[in-house]
């Protein structure tokens, strides 16, 4: 009889859905750098379970990580100054970021070469040479930066799987994480999570990496802002790695 009751109990536990508690996190992408407000538009953030202490190994890897800046990457790939300027003009990391106009194709040597190649390849349908211009760009200029950055992020994660990832939009400048499974420890109503961009965001002449703790509960939307600490100071419940961005000066890539 006892065995039967136990079986029924186990069966019920298996089939009755547990009312899982979920929370919402809003990462505010508006930051203040040197008194000026900056908007981190369309930037990716990663959410991890646990706080700074629980993710110490990841934080240590972030501290030691050396990401190649956008300018240096394209500099090392011998991209022309015009190509780099085209990217920088709209804060683009790849040529897929915006439309390549006829004017761009005439001005940027890499686009000009790709267009000429396409015109030969698609002689039967010349409009494809412009519409499909990126398919004739050199690989390192096409998706090289994305691939090397992805590889660097994978190395940082070292098998750790983020709970969720999300991007800031370009209007409200927020990254919204929803349906976050929250399991507060006994005696608490919230659980500690870590939100980080992992790969540095370039703002002006510096790059920024945040790893910030946030308390998330099921009953209230959590909001996390990204502090920029004054030099020599620490931000509360955050590790912020601020580095100077090396610049391409024709001789190579150097920190000015």
């Amino acid at each position: 009889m006892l065995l039967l009751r136990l079986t029924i109990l186990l069966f019920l536990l298996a089939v009755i859905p547990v009312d899982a508690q979920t929370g919402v996190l809003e990462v505010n992408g508006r930051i203040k750098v040197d008194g000026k407000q900056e908007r981190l538009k369309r930037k990716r953030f990663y959410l991890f379970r646990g706080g700074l202490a629980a993710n110490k190994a990841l934080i240590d890897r972030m501290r030691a990580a050396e990401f190649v800046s956008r300018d240096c990457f394209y500099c090392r790939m011998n991209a022309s100054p015009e190509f780099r300027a085209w990217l920088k003009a709209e804060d683009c990391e790849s040529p897929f970021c915006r439309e390549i106009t006829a004017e761009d194709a005439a001005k940027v040597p890499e686009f000009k070469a790709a267009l000429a190649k396409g015109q030969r390849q698609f002689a039967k349908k010349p409009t494809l040479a412009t519409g499909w211009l990126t398919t004739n760009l050199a690989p390192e200029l096409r998706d090289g930066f994305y691939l090397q950055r992805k590889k660097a992020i994978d190395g940082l994660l070292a098998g750790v799987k983020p709970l969720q990832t999300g991007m800031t939009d370009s209007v409200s400048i927020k990254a919204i994480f929803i349906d976050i499974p929250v399991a507060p420890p006994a005696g608490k109503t919230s659980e500690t999570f870590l939100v980080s961009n992992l790969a540095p965001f370039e703002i002006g002449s510096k790059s920024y990496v945040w790893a910030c703790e946030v308390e998330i509960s099921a009953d209230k939307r959590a909001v996390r802002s990204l502090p920029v600490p004054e030099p020599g100071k620490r931000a509360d419940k955050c590790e912020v790695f601020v580095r100077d961005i090396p610049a391409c000066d024709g001789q190579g890539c150097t920190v000015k």
Partner: protein
Amino acid sequence: MRIRTAIVITVFIAAAIAANFLPRSAAQQRDRFSHASAAHKKLDCSSCHKVPTSNWLPARGFPDVAQFPGHVACASCHRQDFFVGNKPAFCAGCHTNATPRSAPLFPFPVRSRSHEFAIVFPHSVHQDIIAGEQRRRGDVAVAHFVNASFRTLPDDEPKFNNCAICHATATALPKFAARPPVGQTPVGEAAGDNFAPTARFFKTMPSGHATCFECHYQGLEPVATNCAGCHRLTPPYFESGVVKRYSLKFDHSAVNDKGDLVHTRDCMTCHVRISGNGDLKTLKDADVPIMACMSCHNHAADLKTELDKRAEAPKAFQCNYCHTAAVGGFPVPPSHEKQ
């Protein structure tokens, strides 16, 4: 006894002769090709499909797979199937009427047949690599960051995050349907509803290779010859082409009294699940949660009003601000109560 033996022998001989006329291989037992057969699954796509096919220019206008593979692709394994009977069933996989003199082909692909492949499109990866903001006339984001009174730019609609590369405002009304919650029953009987959306309520979705090949034709993986990069074998299914919505009344192109567009925020402001999603088939709920709507629609006549009315008369009142009758009568989900 002799008669019985003679009958058995006759039946046996007749069966043996009849068996000779039966289709010789599985390929003769159906009138269509299956990618899912054990033998076909072992083959690389490129061993049959050529990219592009010779007819690409008139058929598509861009280098595409616009034709069935040639006889050579089939002949190495199915040579004997070409010569079974006057009209081999095998040929009906590609030909509308296979005769030695003429063998017209079905249009490729054959739309009336079930699909064998599902498409995997990681929005997350594309958001990382193509996400951009088209700036125009100053800072678009400032112009669109609006709360109570809506303002829009005088030029065309915003194309935030390059989503518009693939999703444009529809010009033709797609087939549409309400998407009622699964596993629930309406609280009351559904009231009549003659709501009719227009084409501009909807956004288009790419179909075919035209959009993908713009970037992926060559060089950028998965390239045109890497079929498996996007296509995954799946149990056969028919594409209904029906756009299903929880909130059928949401109009992407809604305008205010002044004729200005009102839903002009970045696509990702509402489609919050998209930037983290690697395969749409894994999305369990709507990619626009109610909280995205609530950032603006928190005034009278919106959610709160409807929730109050619903609480007063659960069976009589159906939510109708966003939902049609097919959805408005279902129990209020916890996500709505939480707002």
